[in-house]
């Protein structure tokens, strides 16, 4: 009895001791918050990372490095040589991808380690940079929080305001593998400031094809049935002539509070048919032009027409580029499985030939506190 007790004790002790000293407390780590992937002019892979400095003596509270490396994992050894602590990827908040990377097919495989290594966070925001990544990652504005926090907040806020698509590593992975959908990613640009400008549309294999502005993205999100909070749209009513003047007199702003978008899927005459039924409840919150210019009943028609043209423009763009950022392929698979299976591999093409009809029904709920 006693001998056994002692032997267990010894074993435990040995186990404890052998695992000693293998861990690093968090203040001694270099915790990457941004990871940047870009190509330089000679088509070399450029990896950059940015991490906070905890030391009070350091003047800057963030350290940023950029270097050439073969892969993301390969870059770590160089970073370890540069940074104060052991570099860890567990808290990466933002993954910046240069637009130049997206212009080449098969770039997705460079992100392999992000999914393979369990220590990576899967909620990392993926953002496309129009221009060199280094401009964004080295940018240190005086009036903004640290860049990783700032970028994350910007994307989160716009997501909640229905202005950008959901884009983290998990979603990107899903969209890359899903055959019935093509990926979309938010895009930022560095001019005087870093700002969010819309989303990029990618092909099935990830190649860049086109971009959407912020407002177009909102419409795309309605088509995807992914709107979050109330969505504000400012649209010019183009039917009546602009009376000129500095203050665009034909502008109307509406708040879309409730959107229901329903798709029915059919297969007829060798074509897929998607019928959208979108019903919205809107509030008019800004109307620059005088009231007598248009009647209440007409106003509804005008808005419908205006919005419809926007939706159609987006769909045209999608079909032209043979992509499917909405995910209509998922509907096709769910409801027309046999037909879908035949064209699964070239779904973008199949979609470009299909019919997408949209019927819009607007319900004006209120016109605000003044007449």
């Amino acid at each position, binding site marked *: 009895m006693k001998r056994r007790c002692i032997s267990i004790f010894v074993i435990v002790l040995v186990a404890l001791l052998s695992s000693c000293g293998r861990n690093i407390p968090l203040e001694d780590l270099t915790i990457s918050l941004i990871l940047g992937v870009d190509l330089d002019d000679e088509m070399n892979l450029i990896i950059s990372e940015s991490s906070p400095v905890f030391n*009070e003596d350091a003047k800057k509270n963030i350290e940023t490095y950029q270097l050439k490396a073969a892969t993301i994992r390969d870059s770590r050894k160089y970073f370890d040589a540069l940074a104060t602590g052991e570099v860890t990827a567990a808290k990466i908040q933002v993954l910046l991808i240069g637009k130049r990377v997206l212009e080449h097919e098969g770039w997705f495989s460079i992100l392999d380690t992000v999914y393979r290594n369990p220590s990576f966070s899967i909620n990392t925001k993926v953002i496309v940079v129009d221009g060199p990544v280094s401009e964004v990652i080295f940018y240190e504005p005086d009036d903004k929080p640290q860049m990783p926090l700032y970028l994350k907040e910007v994307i989160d806020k716009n997501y909640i305001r229905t202005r950008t698509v959901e884009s983290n590593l998990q979603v990107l992975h899903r969209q890359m593998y899903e055959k019935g959908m093509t990926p979309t990613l938010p895009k930022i640009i560095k001019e005087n400031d870093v700002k969010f400008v819309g989303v990029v549309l990618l092909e099935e294999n990830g190649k860049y094809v086109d971009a959407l502005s912020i407002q177009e993205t909102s419409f795309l999100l309605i088509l995807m049935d992914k709107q979050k909070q109330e969505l504000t749209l400012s649209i010019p009513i183009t039917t009546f002539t602009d009376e000129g003047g500095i203050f665009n007199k034909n502008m109307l702003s509406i708040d879309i509070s409730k959107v229901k978008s329903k798709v029915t899927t059919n297969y007829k005459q060798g074509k897929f048919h998607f019928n959208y039924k979108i019903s919205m409840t809107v509030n008019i919150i800004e109307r620059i032009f005088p009231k007598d210019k248009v009647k209440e009943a007409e106003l509804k028609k005008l808005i419908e027409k205006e919005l419809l043209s926007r939706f159609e423009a987006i769909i045209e763009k999608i079909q032209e580029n043979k992509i499917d950022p909405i995910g209509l392929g998922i509907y096709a698979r769910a409801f027309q499985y046999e037909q879908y299976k035949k064209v699964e591999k070239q779904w973008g093409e199949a979609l470009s030939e299909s019919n997408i009809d949209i019927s819009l029904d607007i319900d004006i709920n209120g016109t605000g506190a003044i007449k």
Partner: protein
Amino acid sequence: MLFSRRYSKKPSPSQQFNDFVHQGQISSDLMENITEIQSVFCDTPDLIIRSLVIKQTQSQAVLVYLSSIADSKSIFNHVLHPLLFEDGQDINTEALNVSLGHIKKATSWQQIERAILNGACILFVEKQTEAYIYDTPDFPKRAIEDTTIESSLTGAHIGFTETGSENIALIRKQIHNRELKIKEITVGKRGQLQLSILYLADVANPDVLRELEYRIQKVNVDSVLNAGVLAEYIEDNPYSPFPQLLLTERPDYAAAEILQGRFVTVVDRSPSVIIGPVTFDSFFKTIDDYSSRWMVASFIRLMRYFGFIIAIFLPATYIAIITFHFEVIPLKLLLSIGSSREQIPFPPYIEAFIMELTLEMLREAGIRLPAKIGQTVGIVGGIVIGQAAVEAGIVSNIMVIVVALTAVASFIIPNYEMGSAIRIVRFPMMILASFFGFIGIIVGFMILLAHFIELESLGTPYGSPIAPLKISDWKDLFIRFPQWAIERRPLGTKAIQMKKANANHQKGDQQ
């Protein structure tokens, strides 16, 4: 073996009982008896030997007592005075004319010696081989006061004292029932101690009583100092961090437990009584839970269990997160922890140990010191340890918060013993966490659970409504249901009469 039970072992051959007490019978010769007494009680200046002639029978007699522990006034009024000055007007001439209630006769020296040491006075009469024992004790004792450790807001403000008979009286005051039985057992070879087991004969389980008696009888010691010592002798698993018997100084609480079907052991000379068998949840209840409204009581009770979890796991979790799993902290908190820990020269576990041990020392220092110095300790602890240590960069702000939370959480446990148990368990958890992170904590928790499940109190399962799951007992566990809803006694006590007698609450609005 670790965590093995004490009573599963075979009893070791008991030591030869060495009798310190004088053997033999008293003699009919008065002088011989006096010499005998003097030889037994040599070097005892407070021994009074008073020779007298009893007026009633005109025979020579000697009165012997210890002046320090016998009540001189009642000896004079009720023994000496009647013997010296009153005629026997009674027809019954056998009995001596003494105005006392409790009179015994003894023939052996052993009885006499014990009686003298218990404060009795002994009357030897010429030519009689029997001595009279008059029970006139007057031990120094304390008045009944408010409880000191287990204070209560709305409960009775009466605590047990150091006198066993008074303590029994306090319990009897609560339960006027003839089924309240008292079993007396004497323990201790040198300092003999009277134990009384109180229970309701028609409710409490006789098997448990037998077990309790058996264990008490097996205690083989010189003297039992107080209830805590006895509890350590009779508890099931001495290697457990958890207390398996409940000590209380509240008569109302003890009475309530008797009514539940438990046993209360009153230990003479000790201001607390032992309640057994208990379950884990007993240590999280107070008498105030039952006198306040049930929602309030339930909320506070949930807080206590929450405090229990916090006190055991919070420092360990801190260590695990800082050392291994910093990923789980959200970014903003991570940045602030990082900058507050940056200048700390110690790894997290050393930091945590320094602070936790300091806290324990401060607490202990505060208890034993007089109240006025105790305040100083508080100030020193609060300012020097808290503020200055952070400023000097010895510990981080977060650590101070963790330690403070742990302390508060462990003080919320109403039972002092259980509170201390938690504080002890915390340290192995911290060690495990510093080696294996969350896995260490989980393994520690598993070990704790394994121990908790198999632990017993007087042969009944310790984790009763939880570990052998008994849903019907949950009415008085985390949520205290209204009193009228708790109709049955807890299954954990193995009571033979389950239904409470007073469960006659009118359902609905029939009245």
